[in-house]
Every structure is written in C-alpha cells, then in structure tokens.
C-alpha cells in the first residue's frame, strides 16, 4: 500500500486528545511550538447542537437512553465502550480484561466522573510502606506545583481538610449535600467512618470568562455545553487553539506506529485515515504518546525496527507489563426513611456525588494492602430506560404482594422513587509483572493493525480488599437504617470484585523509573530508548493509588511538557 507522506514537519506530534494529550497540547502550543494532534475518533464539541446530548429528555431517544449501543446509555458522551465494532482485543485463557476506549476528540474525559483526587505523599512511595510493587522515582513535592496549577487552570471543588494522604488544593467551594447524602453523612458518622465533601472538576464558581458555571443538571457524563466541567476538548484543546496556538488536528486518524530513523529516534507517526482507509505519515521532531495506557503500549509494540526489534521503548521487555486497574465493588440498598419523597424540587446537582469517603484505615491492622475510597449515589434522577422495572419488588419488605398490574403500580413507583442509595468502592491494586498486554499476532483490527491481547488476574490482595469493602458497605447501610439489596458476594464469586478494566482506571503499561532495565520511561516520561518520544497518559504510573488517575495524568503531562520545552531550548532533543 502506498503511504501518503505529508512533508510539513511539526515540532511535536501528540497522539491522543484526552487528559494527557490535551494538557500537552495546551502547554506545548503556548510555548510557541507547532503541534499536530492525532486522534483516532471524530471531532467533538459538546456545544455543537448536532453532537450535544445535554438537557435531552429520555423520550428524545427512541430507546429511552438504554445502553444497547453506548455502554453508559444513549446520552453518554463516549463514542466507544468496552467493545468497538471492528476494533477487537483478545484475552488469554482465564483472563477477562475489559478495555474501554472512547474514540473522539477529548477521549474519555468527555464522559468521566470528574472525581479529581491528588495522589498523596504515601501514594508515590508504597514499596517503602508495604514492600509490594515499587516506589515512583518522584515524590509528592515534585508533582505538587503541577497539581496546584491544574486546580487553578481547570477548576475543582472540594475542601481543605489537612488529611495526611489526600492533600489540600486550590478548591472551589463544594455544593451542599442532597437528601440521600445527608443520610450517608449521618450513617458514616455513626459508623465512625469519615465523610467529606467530594472533590470534582465542575465549576461551582467562575474561574475565567471563557468557561461557564455549573447549572446543576447532573449530566456531566454528557459533557457540558457551557464547558463548566473538565473535558479535554473544551478546557484544553479549544483554549489552546483560541490562544493562537499552532495546533493542527488530525481526526479519525488511527495511529499504527511511531516511525524511527537509523539512530532509533522518532521521525513521526504513521496512521490510517478512517475516512478513506489509506495510510498516511506525518513528520515530527518529538512525539508524545497520549493514546491511553494500553493504546500507547500497542503503538510502541507495533513500532518495530532494526533499532527497536521488540518494539519502540521496549528494550526492558516491560512495555505492556504491570497494567493495573482500580479494584471495584458496589452494592445498593433501600432506605425506608427515604420513601414517599416530595418531588417538587430539583435535586439533580452536579453529575455524581457531593460527598465521599477517602481511605481512612491503617493497613497494619488489616489483612490486605492499600486502600479504597467510597463513592455514593442515589436521589431522584431523571427516569430513563430501566426506571420502573420490578416496580414493587420492595413490597416484600412490608409483606405486601409483588407484581400485579393496574394503577396501584403507579403508587408503588412514587412511593419508592428516590429511596435507593448505592456505594462504589474503588481501591488500589498491586501491579503485577504477570498482568500484561501484548500484541496478538493472530488478530488485526479493521485498519489492519495487530491488536492487543491481555492477561490479567486479580490476586488475593485485591480480593481481600474488596471483601472488606462489602463489609464496610453493610456497616454503613446498617448505620443509615438501610436494607442492603441482593446478596453479599462470597468467596465463590471472588467477593464481587469487578473484572479488571471495568473501573476504567487502567495504568502502568510503560512505567517510569531510574533503572532502564526495570522501567520504560524516566521520571519525565521520556523513553529510555528514544529521547524524543514521551508518554503523557497513565502508562508511566508506577502505582495507581486509591484515587482516580485523571488529576495526576494532567499534572504529570504538564510537568513532562515543561521538561520538553526546556530540553528543546537546550537543544537536547
């Protein structure tokens, strides 16, 4: 096949436009560099009337928002999911890694939960505390200035609580708790479990004159049309372009490989244009991979050359290894005291929780390492597909008949509306050498690119942690006067631990370190094996903490970008 070459040379080619790629685009373009952003999906702007789903009613979808076609329902702003037609991945026997991809400008930032937690001092040095995994080559103080800048640039609400491993920040004030969250606060206090205002990247207050302020529709997963939540397009890439940055977007461009020269340095990337199915290559002095931890590993492993026979950056053999997701478990409960609610007020709030519980226990007294945080949901949401299913199952708690037909069902629905709460536990797993993704030489995607094959097993560490989550959930439910629904999963179900990948926090495939044999990048996310290739997604994470990764991706991408600017000035790259 003829490869169509573009002779324009960019200072930096950035592959991927999510949190890491978006931040690199902003910082590097504002330094005057000429940037190409290569994104595997279409252009997306949540303010585009033809793309926006915010403020749509359920009945505007013929399937009432059900998740038949989009994993989180019709109105969710992720073009993709765990399964994408024409873009498969495979698993080894006994492995069930689930890989979520969002093919669009801004990537998964368009729909994510906006839970924006800094890693704390302990999170960078876990090996020192429990002898498991590895320390990061950097510490909290190295990243803190960047977290500070991210807070101010993007905006995050929360409160300064002086917690040892959940650092304070430059917060906007949080919204007041909703009714079910007051029940959670009271229950948690009774159970002696801490609870604080959540920390999320929606603007409860103006931070500049370019972005809007939250108007409390609770639909952040649809991506905000007034840019009051953090999405990489609306908060980073569009502002970079508006500020006069030289940013050229290549969309629907699926990167196959990083091209390298005889010295093993990158010269650009080649990609398949999804519109005409032809292969193109563009030139760049520096390449930043921010395609997501696993996609970046795939690109590196598919970038084989005489100088990089096992794939670019893979002289250690570690590209793809140590992939790890957050642990996850969830449970719902019925709160009788939340029955018969008044519906005459709007409690949509921000999209997601107004309160949460960060990790609070000492592992020395527990039978598992690392911690988890608890997310809380509930309330009187907009009815969408699934609302009204099993409308009076809860009658069994009152010895009333279940089932039936007729207008009595209307009373049942109203009686129970808003009386269910749920918890999600999200915890830190131990990265394992034997959990990895590699190239599956027997399978290609529809673009002809070899796909990833995963091998991933949870260990007893994670299973015991999730068992503890479930026990905690029941303590909390009990303290709230709530009746847990369903059965608590036992050992036969691995205590209900979510399949790896389902929490969508996968990190660690190109971990950073000082030792070239034990890591893929240095602390500035520069490949040990090619000094003009950097990684700005969560691949370089050594461990993922009991936090959501996005805020750290943003801070580290900014830190990396400053380093790139400095190295270009010094003519080192």
């Amino acid at each position, binding site marked *: 096949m003829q490869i169509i070459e573009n002779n324009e040379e960019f200072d930096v080619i950035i592959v991927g436009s999510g949190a890491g790629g978006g931040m690199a685009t902003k910082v590097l373009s504002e330094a005057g560099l000429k940037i190409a952003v290569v994104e595997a999906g279409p252009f997306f702007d949540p303010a585009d009337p033809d793309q*926006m789903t915010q403020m749509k009613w359920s009945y505007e979808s013929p399937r009432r928002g059900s998740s038949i076609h989009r994993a989180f329902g019709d109105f969710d702003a992720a073009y993709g999911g765990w399964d994408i037609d024409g873009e498969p991945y495979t698993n080894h026997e006994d492995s069930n890694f689930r890989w979520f991809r969002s093919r669009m400008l801004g990537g998964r930032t368009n729909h994510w939960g906006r839970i924006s937690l800094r890693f704390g001092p302990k999170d960078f040095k876990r090996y020192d505390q429990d002898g498991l995994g590895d320390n990061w080559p950097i510490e909290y103080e190295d990243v803190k200035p960047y977290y500070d800048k991210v807070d101010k640039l993007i905006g995050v609400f929360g409160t300064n609580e002086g917690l040892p491993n959940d650092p304070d920040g430059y917060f906007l004030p949080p919204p007041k708790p909703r*009714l079910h969250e007051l029940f959670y*606060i009271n229950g948690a206090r009774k159970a002696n479990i801490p609870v604080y205002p959540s920390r999320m990247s929606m603007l409860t207050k103006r931070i500049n004159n370019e972005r809007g302020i939250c108007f409390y529709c609770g639909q952040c997963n649809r991506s905000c049309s007034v840019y009051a939540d953090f999405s990489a397009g609306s908060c980073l890439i569009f502002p970079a372009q508006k500020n006069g940055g030289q940013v050229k977007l290549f969309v629907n461009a699926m990167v196959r490989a990083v091209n390298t020269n005889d010295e093993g340095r990158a010269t650009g990337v080649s990609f398949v244009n999804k519109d005409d199915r032809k292969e193109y290559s563009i030139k760049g002095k520096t390449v930043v991979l921010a395609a997501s931890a696993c996609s970046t590993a795939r690109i590196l492993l598919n970038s084989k050359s005489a100088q990089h026979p096992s794939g670019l950056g893979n002289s250690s053999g570690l590209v793809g290894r140590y992939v790890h997701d957050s642990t996850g478990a969830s449970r719902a409960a019925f709160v009788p005291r939340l029955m018969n609610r008044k519906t005459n007020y709007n409690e949509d709030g921000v999209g997601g929780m107004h309160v949460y519980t960060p990790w609070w226990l000492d592992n020395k007294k527990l039978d598992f390492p690392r911690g988890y945080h608890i997310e809380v949901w509930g309330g009187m949401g*907009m009815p969408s597909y699934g609302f009204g299913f099993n409308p009076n199952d809860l009658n069994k708690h009152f010895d009333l008949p279940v089932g039936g037909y007729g207008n009595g069902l209307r009373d049942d629905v109203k009686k129970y509306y808003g009386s269910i709460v749920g918890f999600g536990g999200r915890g830190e797993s131990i990265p394992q050498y034997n959990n990895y993704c590699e190239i599956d030489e027997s399978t290609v995607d529809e673009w002809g690119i070899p796909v990833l094959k995963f091998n991933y097993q949870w260990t007893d560490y994670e299973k015991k942690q999730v068992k503890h989550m479930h026990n905690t959930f029941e303590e909390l439910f009990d303290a709230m006067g709530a009746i847990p629904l369903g059965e608590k999963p036992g050992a036969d179900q691995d205590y209900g631990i979510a399949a790896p990948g389902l929490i969508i926090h996968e990190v660690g495939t190109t971990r950073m370190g000082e030792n070239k044999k034990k890591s893929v990048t240095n602390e500035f996310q520069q490949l040990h094996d090619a000094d003009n290739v950097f990684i700005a997604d969560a691949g370089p994470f050594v461990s993922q903490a009991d936090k959501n990764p996005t805020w750290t991706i943003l801070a580290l991408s900014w830190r990396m970008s400053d380093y790139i600017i400095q190295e270009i000035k010094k003519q080192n790259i």
Partner: protein
Amino acid sequence: MMNRRKSIQTLVLGAGATALAVHSCAPSAEAESLQIPMSNPLSYGRTSKEATHDEKIMAEQYFSEAEMTTLAAVCNLILPGTEGYKSATDAEVPNFIEFMAKDYPDFQLPLRGGLAWLNRQSNLKNDTEFATADTAAQKEILDGIAYPKPDTPDHQQPASVQFFNLLRNLTMTGFYTSKMGIEELGYSGNQPNVWDGVPQEVLDQHNVAYDEAWLAKCIDQSTRNTVAKWDENMNLIS
C-alpha cells in the same frame, strides 16, 4: 410559564454569553446571563453510524397489526387510563415496545410468544382472542401470570410469568420515561438551576438537618459569578 427552551435561553449562566435582558429585581444568581447552545431538536446527538441504525430499524415493522392490538390491550391493563390517569397507549408505549423489539432482538421471541400465549388462553376460556375479550376475562388471565412466586429467580418462573414480568417492565419504563409519565411522577430536574440545598420542609419530613460546619464549607451561591482567587495558602479569597 416559559417553556423549557425559552427558559434555557434566558436563564443566562454561561460565560461569553450575549447579555440578555436581566430583570433588576432578580437575585444575583438568577440574574447571571446564560446561553446554553441549543441542541438540535431533531437529533439526540447521534454519530452517523448510530443514526443509520435508527433509521433502518424505524423503517421496519416487527409486530403485526393484530399483535400491536393485543399489545395495546395488555399495556392498558398494566397502566389503564382510568381514575384520571393517562394510559399506556396515551404515552405510545406499544410503539416504544415495538422499537425495543427491533433494537434488542432478544426481546422478540418472549414478547411474540407471550402475546400468542395470551390469545391461546383467551380462545380456550372465552372463545375469542385476548384483545376482544371483556375486561374481566382479560384480568382473569393476567391474574394467573402477574404474581411471580416470591424468592424464585425470574428465569425459573414459568414462561408466561417471565413474559408478563418483561412486558410490565417495558410498559412501566416506557410510560415513566415519556413526557406524560415524567410529568405524572413529578420529576423536577433537567432544567438549568442553582442548587442550594434541600428545602427545609423536605428536611423536616425526613427528620434530618444540615450541619452548620458543613454548610459553611459550601458554595455561597451569591458569589458563584465572581471569578475565584486564592491566596498562596490555598484559601479562596474571592
């Protein structure tokens, strides 16, 4: 009352919004200008691939006319238009179910088989198909399938009971996600607003209260339009 579109256009919360008429008596939060880009009323944000799928299945018809009639009869027994309520057919629930059967083909066999089962029962008992039986006869048939055995998983219930569970679920969800169903439920959201806590009467009803120390940390909504500034110690100063 303003319609929703109008209220979104005039309740100006966003940045860079064209200044619209602001009533001087309005409290500051409400006086902010908001211009939410209006979504295309004819779309719900589909990609072209998704739109093509929708168009394709909407052009097809799965249930026969007779089946649609039976479906409408059962749906209206589940949610009848009596006692001043809107019925399932008022909310076009059978059309929603027809769409779902095409969008999620796993529904087809249980629904079609279930509708045939209803007619068979009605023919045996009443010598007429379900839709033409009188209401009492229809209810007698439903009484046999509408009350699943407690503590038995759905997939272990008789097929007729599973069918009715499915149809009741689809009818309930089809109704309560429709415009008239949402109105009946009284859901007050999906409107731009400024959340400032649970109303006192609701707190009283559920016997809970806000903690003053917690409230002190929360956003004072009269300041939401002031650009945030911090001192070097992470304290918000404006």
